[in-house]
């Protein structure tokens, strides 16, 4: 087998300076080493490495390793990191999703800013929000409620988008406007600031917000 791959170094290369060659020189291509190295590196980087990280993750970061799952009265209601669909008036709505919050598979609309289809979609989203709360004007709608996310699973909305929806939620739940301050406080409590004070944007987790909202009554 080895002989199939054997080869002399090119003459021109050797001829130019034979005296300077001191180290052992590979004169043939060792196919066996190639196969062995591939097998060994596959086991190292494809089994040992991921299993090692799994071992650390399962023992130290158990919750995040397993998907940051949230339960409510013992039933799995979703993941804190994966957005889910809310379209009832009594809940805060998440951002629009091109996948309708089905995680299999994730993805965005990929529509360009020049797309007529996107323009129509945004108009439709606008009308839906205004129909649900006629007291609002269309220039008050925060952008994240008009544009779908890249993953289709964005678990967050901006604090402004949460505030924007309070009146609708109060009305749908039959709560008087005196409860408004309580909900604003709840949103404030659930607002995650920028990481380390600089990175990213302030945000509110929609599932956690709605979960707490159900507990409010």
């Amino acid at each position: 087998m080895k002989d199939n791959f054997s080869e002399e170094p090119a003459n021109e290369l050797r001829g130019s300076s034979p005296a300077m060659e001191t180290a052992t020189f590979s004169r043939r291509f060792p196919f066996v080493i190639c196969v062995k190295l591939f097998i060994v590196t596959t086991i190292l980087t494809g089994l040992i490495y991921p299993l090692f990280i799994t071992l650390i993750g399962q023992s130290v970061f158990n919750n995040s390793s397993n998907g940051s799952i949230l339960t409510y009265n013992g039933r799995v209601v979703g993941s804190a990191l994966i957005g889910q669909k809310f379209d009832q008036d009594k809940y805060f709505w998440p951002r629009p999703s091109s996948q309708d919050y089905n995680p299999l598979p994730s993805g965005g609309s990929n529509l360009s800013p020049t797309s007529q289809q996107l323009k129509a979609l945004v108009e439709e989203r606008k009308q839906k929000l205004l129909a649900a709360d006629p007291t609002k004007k269309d220039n008050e709608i925060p952008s994240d409620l008009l544009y779908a996310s890249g993953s289709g699973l964005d678990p967050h909305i901006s604090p402004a988008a949460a505030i924007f929806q309070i009146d609708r939620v109060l009305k749908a739940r039959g709560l008087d406007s005196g409860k408004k301050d309580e909900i604003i406080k709840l949103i404030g409590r659930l607002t995650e600031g920028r990481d380390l004070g600089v990175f990213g944007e302030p945000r509110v987790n929609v599932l956690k917000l709605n979960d707490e909202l159900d507990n409010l009554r």
Partner: protein
Amino acid sequence: MRVNDYLQVIIFCLVLIGLTPPLGLYMARVFEGKKTVMSPVMGWLENLLYRLCGINQNEEMDWKIYTKALLYFNLLGFLFLFVLQLAQKILPLNPANLPNVAWDSAFNTAASFMTNTNWQSYAGETTMSYLTQMIGLTVQNFLSAATGITVFLALTRGLISKSKSSLGNFWVDMVRSLIYVLLPLSILLAVILNSQGVVQTLSSYKDATTLQGANQTIPLGPAASQIAIKQLGTNGGGFFNANSAHPFENPTPLANFLEVLAILLIPAALVYSYGVMIGNRKHGWLLFFVMFAIFALGLGLALWSEYSISSATIHEGQEVRLGITNSVLWMTATTCASNGSVNAMYSSLTPLAGGVAMFNIMLGEVVFGGVGSGLYGMLHIVLLTVFLAGLMVGRTPEYLGKKIERKEVQMVILSILLPSAAILIGAGIACVLPVALSSLSSKGPHGLSEILYAFTSASQNNGSAFAGLNANTVFYNVVLGLCMIIGRFGVIIPAMVIAGSLAVKRITPVGSGTFATDNFLFAALLVGVLIIVGVLTFFPALSLGPLVEHLLMLKGRGF
């Protein structure tokens, strides 16, 4: 842009520049076989690998044997990954019971991950079993990045070698890159990402009943381990379809910062390593800042374009936790490097920002570029610049004392022409074939951009996409797969030929007539050559895609 947006960009640049010298110096010592802080920790593993494989670390290889080792090693990886996908249904660790991958998609994926492209015509969570993700895709994430480093090392040794044909030992370079650079950094990053919320489990997908009472299946998997190397190895292939826009892949802004830093970390530090290895750190810094300048220029243009379009605080295809600035910063980093991961959907970027992404890739990803591959690509441009400067003053061009002659220049031109031809000819053919056009989701110039981006991304081994294009068809899977192979080995083989040819040349002492390569004049020439080559090749295509779309957008036209 608000103050905070500027601050995030500045912090990113400062951290990147700050980490470059220590990591660069460390890697140079590793590749020169010297002792480092990691020798006591990982030395036993290095020796164990040599013993298991029968590698003699003192054996030297000339360019032909080195290249042959590299090609066969890559071929094995390709075949293994191809077969693995075709058989995953009957193999273990497939809790979601996913079927075997179709042959054309399997070919495309195997080519894609072997060539460090990581273009994905499939959606991870609905296509690949955990086993395939681990011993197929994660492995190629490591090996393709290490392959890039070996080519860079061979070329560097060819440049500094004193008239001998040895370029080092491929096996040793491969093992050292893995054990001392890629693996420790991946372990570190994987654990941090895991702590931030990236999943890492072998359990099956989780069923949930939402608050509104609907069913939702939440995909899981050993993601953190793969995402770490996907970022560090300039691979970019996501565990999930939405890549790093997916909250399980990029859960927090802090995770996002580390992931985007990881894209450029090794490529930037390798430039410093290069300066150390050739004994001219000033030249290393010069290359670094040439790259940095082009990076900053593209970033500035893309940010301006995204923020000037409207007063919206977020656009279609972007995540609330990350915002516009982080999306654009990532876009610039991932297309300068050959990473190709995304944290927002690029097809939804403004036309000019999308054009910046495309142009970055078209330059050959030499602005930091892929791990190893960016630097050997940049060295090709350096050789071209030296050659052109030589023509201007009428002297035999020299680089680091080595005469640049006909053979080297031929190879440089070949390595520039092959990927460019694959892009333009491929996209040209796709524009007239009904079977290719039926995959389009956009009309007008954006449709052309979708096709052009696909061929650019594949041929230059980037892997990001204007994903409106449905690329999971037999036509695109096969043709783009071939483009990836041409784009990868059409640059590697010329680089190895140049390395072999330079290695045996004498080093001419520096004289008064030597053209200096560590001053501002050279930096300006280098930027000029890079931009001129890119613009001359691609301006007509770019003007029909992103530029026309931008102008029509300004006039209020939609499609």
